[in-house]
C-alpha cells in the first residue's frame, strides 16, 4: 500500500508536466486546428535557456531560489518568441496554401532544426539543473516527496488557471475563444485571426518552456530531453480530448501514474508502452477523448 501510494505521488508530478505540454497542444489546436509537432523541442529550449540564465544569475551572487524566480520571466518571454517563430515559419504559410499536412512536416522540420542547434550550443550530454528548493525529500506519512515535485504540481495548475482566467475575462482572451469557435466568423467580426493564431502559438510554447524549467531540476536537461515528453503529451492530449481543459490534467495524471506503476511492477524498460496502449484504447472507445465532446459537423 505504502509503495502504491509512493508510486502514485511520483506519477502525479510527471503527469502534470505532460498535462502542461498537452495544454499547449490544445491552445493552438483550438484556434487553428494545427499543433506543434516540435513542442518537445520548445520545452527543451526553454529549459536550456533557463539553465544558462540561471547559471549567469548564480554567478552574479544571487541565490539559486531568487535566481530561479528571476529566470522565469526570461524563459516565458523566450518561449513566447520561439512559439511565434514556429507559427510564422511553420504554420502560417501552410494555412495560407490550405495544405492539409504541410504544417505537420514543417513543425517537425523546425523541431529537428532546433534540436540540432541546441546540440551545437549546449552539447549532446545531459546537464544538471540547479534546484531552487531543497533536494532532500519530505516524508509525509511514509511517502517520500521532493519539494520540487510539489512545486511542479502547483506551478502547472497556476499556469493553466492563469491562461483560463485570461481567456475568460480579458477582451484578448475573448478574441481567442471566438476564433476557436469559428475562425471565419471571428475574422468577419474584425478580429485579426492571424494574430490570434500567432498568439496561441506563443502561449503554447510559453507553457512548454515553463514546463521545461519546472521539470528540469527533478530530471536532467539536455538537447534530447524534448522528444519523449512531447510524444507523451500527444498521448495525453488524445486521451483527455484535444478540446477539453480538464481532460489534459486528468489525462496527464492517468498517464503519469500508469507509467510509474508499469515501471515498478513490470519493468522500467516498458515504462513508455502504456501511453500508446491507452491512446489506442481511448481512440477505439471514445474517439473524442475521455472529456472531449464530439463536434457535429454542419453540412
Amino acid at each position, binding site marked *: 500500500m505504502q509503495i502504491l501510494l509512493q508510486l502514485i505521488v511520483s506519477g502525479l508530478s510527471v503527469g502534470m508536466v505532460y498535462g502542461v505540454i498537452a495544454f499547449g497542444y490544445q491552445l493552438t489546436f483550438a484556434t487553428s486546428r494545427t499543433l506543434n509537432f516540435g513542442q518537445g523541442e520548445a520545452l527543451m529550449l526553454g529549459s536550456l535557456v533557463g539553465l544558462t540564465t540561471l547559471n549567469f544569475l548564480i554567478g552574479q551572487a544571487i541565490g539559486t531560489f531568487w535566481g530561479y524566480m528571476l529566470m522565469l520571466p526570461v524563459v516565458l518571454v523566450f518561449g513566447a518568441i520561439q512559439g511565434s517563430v514556429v507559427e510564422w515559419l511553420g504554420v502560417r504559410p501552410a494555412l495560407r496554401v490550405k495544405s492539409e499536412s504541410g504544417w505537420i512536416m514543417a513543425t517537425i522540420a523546425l523541431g529537428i532544426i532546433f534540436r540540432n542547434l541546441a546540440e551545437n550550443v549546449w552539447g549532446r550530454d545531459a546537464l544538471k539543473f540547479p534546484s531552487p528548493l531543497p533536494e532532500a525529500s519530505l516524508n509525509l506519512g511514509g511517502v517520500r516527496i521532493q519539494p520540487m515535485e510539489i512545486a511542479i504540481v502547483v506551478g502547472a495548475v497556476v499556469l493553466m488557471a492563469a491562461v483560463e482566467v485570461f481567456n475568460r475575462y480579458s477582451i484578448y482572451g475573448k478574441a481567442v475563444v471566438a476564433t476557436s469557435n469559428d475562425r471565419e466568423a471571428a475574422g468577419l467580426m474584425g478580429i485579426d485571426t492571424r494574430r490570434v493564431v500567432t498568439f496561441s502559438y506563443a502561449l503554447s510554447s510559453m507553457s512548454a518552456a515553463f514546463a521545461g524549467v519546472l521539470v528540469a531540476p527533478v530530471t536532467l536537461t539536455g538537447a534530447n530531453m524534448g522528444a519523449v515528453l512531447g510524444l507523451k503529451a500527444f498521448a495525453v492530449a488524445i486521451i483527455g480530448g484535444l478540446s477539453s481543459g480538464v481532460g489534459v490534467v486528468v489525462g496527464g495524471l492517468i498517464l503519469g501514474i500508469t507509467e510509474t506503476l508499469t515501471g515498478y511492477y513490470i519493468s522500467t524498460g*516498458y515504462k513508455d508502452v502504456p501511453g500508446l496502449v491507452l491512446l489506442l484504447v481511448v481512440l477505439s472507445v471514445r474517439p473524442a477523448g475521455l472529456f472531449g465532446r464530439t463536434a457535429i459537423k454542419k453540412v
Partner: protein
Amino acid sequence: MSRIVWLAAIVAVLVAPYAVTSPYYLHLLVTIAIFSIVTLGLDVVFGYTGEVSLGHAALLGIGSYTAAVLSMHFGLGLWPAIPIAITVTAGFGALLALPALRVTGPYLAMVTLAFGTIVQILINEMTDLTNGPLGVKFVTPLFFDWRPYAKMLPFLDMSMKRMKEMQYFYLAAVALLLTILVINRVLASRYGRAFEALRDSPIACDCMGVSVYKHKVIAFVLSAAFCGLAGVLFAYSEQYVAPNNFTFELSVQFLLAVTMGGRKSRLGPILGAAIIVYLPNLLADIALFRIVAGGIAAVALIGGTISIVRERESWRRIAAPVALCIAFFAFALALQKITDFKLAIFGVMILFVVYYLPDGIVGFLQRLVVRRAGAKILADPALASRPEAEPIAIRARAEGGAALLSVDEVVMRFGGLKALDGVSLSVAPGSIHGLIGPNGSGKSTMMNVLTGVYAPTDGRVRFAGADIAGHKSPEIALAGIARTFQNVQLFGELSVLENVLVGLHHSYRSGFFAIGARLPSAKREEALARARAMNILEFVGLKALAAEEARNLPYGKQRLLEIGRALALDPALLLLDEPAAGLTAPDITELIAIIRKIRDAGLSVILIEHHMDVVMSLCDAVTVLDFGQKIAEGRPEAVQRDPRVIEAYLGSGAAAHAA
C-alpha cells in the same frame, strides 16, 4: 506509351548490374528499390488519402524483424518470410489505422509517431524474441547457382559474392516493378477512385455508400503491407538489422521523399527514395554538398528569371525562394564542419520542399514543361449499349403495401435548439414527396437525419422494413437511400464518368487480388460498370461531357450530375435537396422531366424545393415544416391553401387576408 515505359524499365533493370559494377553502388541501387517500395506505399496514404504517417519506418522495422524472428526461431528463410511479414505488418497497420482514423484531424500522425517510438523500445526490450539492441544477422541467399552454365554465360562474373549481389538486385527490382504494377492497378480501380473521392468531399463519399473511414483504413493497411515486403528485402539486403535502423528520422525521410519527388505519381516517390538514400553521402561530403547547393541556387535563379520573364508568377512570389536558395549556398560555403549541422540542413530541406516545392520535382517539371493534357476519353462507345446495364435499378422495396419510409416523432437537438421537434412523415412507394418550409425550418436537417449525417436525438426512422435511425451514412446509402446536396458536393477532380463510377462502387465484387492480378472477372466488372455509368449519364443528359472534370461543369449540369451519381447507388428512395436552386428556366424544365422519369421507373423521391411551381407540378404529397415542426401535410393544392402555411411564409396578416 505506357508499354514503352515498362519496356524501358525492364531493360534498365536487366542491364543495370553491368553498368554498375561497384558493389557499393549496386547495393545503393538495391536500397533505393526497397525504399521505393515503402515510399510508393506511403504515397497511397499520404498523397491520395491525405493522411500523414510518421510510422512507416517502424512498419518497415516490423517487416524486418518478422524476417528476423522467423530465421532465428523457426529457421525459415527469405521466401516464407515475405508472405508472413506482409501479413504481420498489414495486421499492425490495421491495429493503428482502425482506432486512429475514426476521427478527422492529425490523429494518425500522432498515433503513428507514438507507435514508431514504442516499436523501437519494444525491439530493444524483448531481447528473447528480437535479440535486443545487439541486432540480428542475415545471410543474403543465393537463389540460383549459375557456375555450371559458365560457358553459356560468358559475360557473367561467377564469384559467389557477385552472383549473390546481382541476383539480389534482380529480386529487389522485380519486387519494385510488381509493386508499381499492383499500385497502378489498385489506383485505377474502384479503390483508387474512392481514395480520390474521399478527399474531394468526404460527406458525399459516405453518402454514396463508400465509407471514408473504411477506405482510409484500407489505404493504410495496403501501405503497411508494402512496408512488410520492403522490410524483409531490407533485412536480407543489409545482412544486419538493429532497432536504430528504424528511427523517427527515417519516417520523416520517407515523407520528405514522397513530397520532394512528387505525390500522386509513380516516378515521384522513386525519385524521392533515390534522393533520401543518397542523402547521407551528400551530407557527409562538404565539397559535394557545396556543389549541389550551388547547383540548386543556379537552377532556382534561372528558373525564377524565366518565370518572371514569361510572367507566369509575380516576382514577389519568386524572390523569397530564390533568395533562400542563394542564402543556402552561402551557408554551404561558410560551413566548416558539415556533420554538426546535418540534421539542421535536413530540416531546412523539408521546409523548403513543403513551401516551395509542394507538388514535388515531378509536379514542378510537369508544370514547367507541359500543361497537362485534358483527361483522356475513357468511354468506349462499343460498351455503352449493353442491355444489362439499365440506367435505373432499385435495390430495396417496401414490404407489401407499407410505406417505404416512415419517420416517427423525430427530434434533432443542437444544444438548446430543437432543429426538428417531433416530426413524423411517411413516403409511399413510387411517389414524389415534397418537403417545404421557410429557411431554417429544418428541411436540410431532416435530410441529414435520414442519410445518417446526424444521429437523431430521439424518434424512429423505418426504411423498407428496417430501423435506420442512428445508423452510419454508408450503411444507409447501401440500404437504398441516395441523396444530392444543397451546396453541390461533387468529386471535383474526378471526371464526370468517374463521379458516377464512385456511386457504382457497391456493384463491384472483386478484391485486391483480382485487381492486382487483373483477373478476367475484374476486367468484366469494370467494363460493365463503365457501360452502366454511361447509360446513367445519357439518362441525365451528360453523356457528351463524360470525360470532363466535374468541377468544370456549369452549375446546372453539376446538379444533374449529382442526381446521376445518386442513381448509380440503385436507391429505392432519392432525396433531392433544392435541385432547382440556381438553375435557368430551360434547365428546370429538363430537371422536371428527369425527376418524372425517375418516379416512373419506380423510385420514391423526397424533394426539398423553394420553387413552388416545381413542387406543385411534381409532388404527390407535401409536408410543410416551420421552426422544426410539421404544420401541414397533404395534397399540394390543399397545402397551398392552408392558412398556417400561408402564415409561415408570409406572416399572420397575409393569412388573415387570404382567409
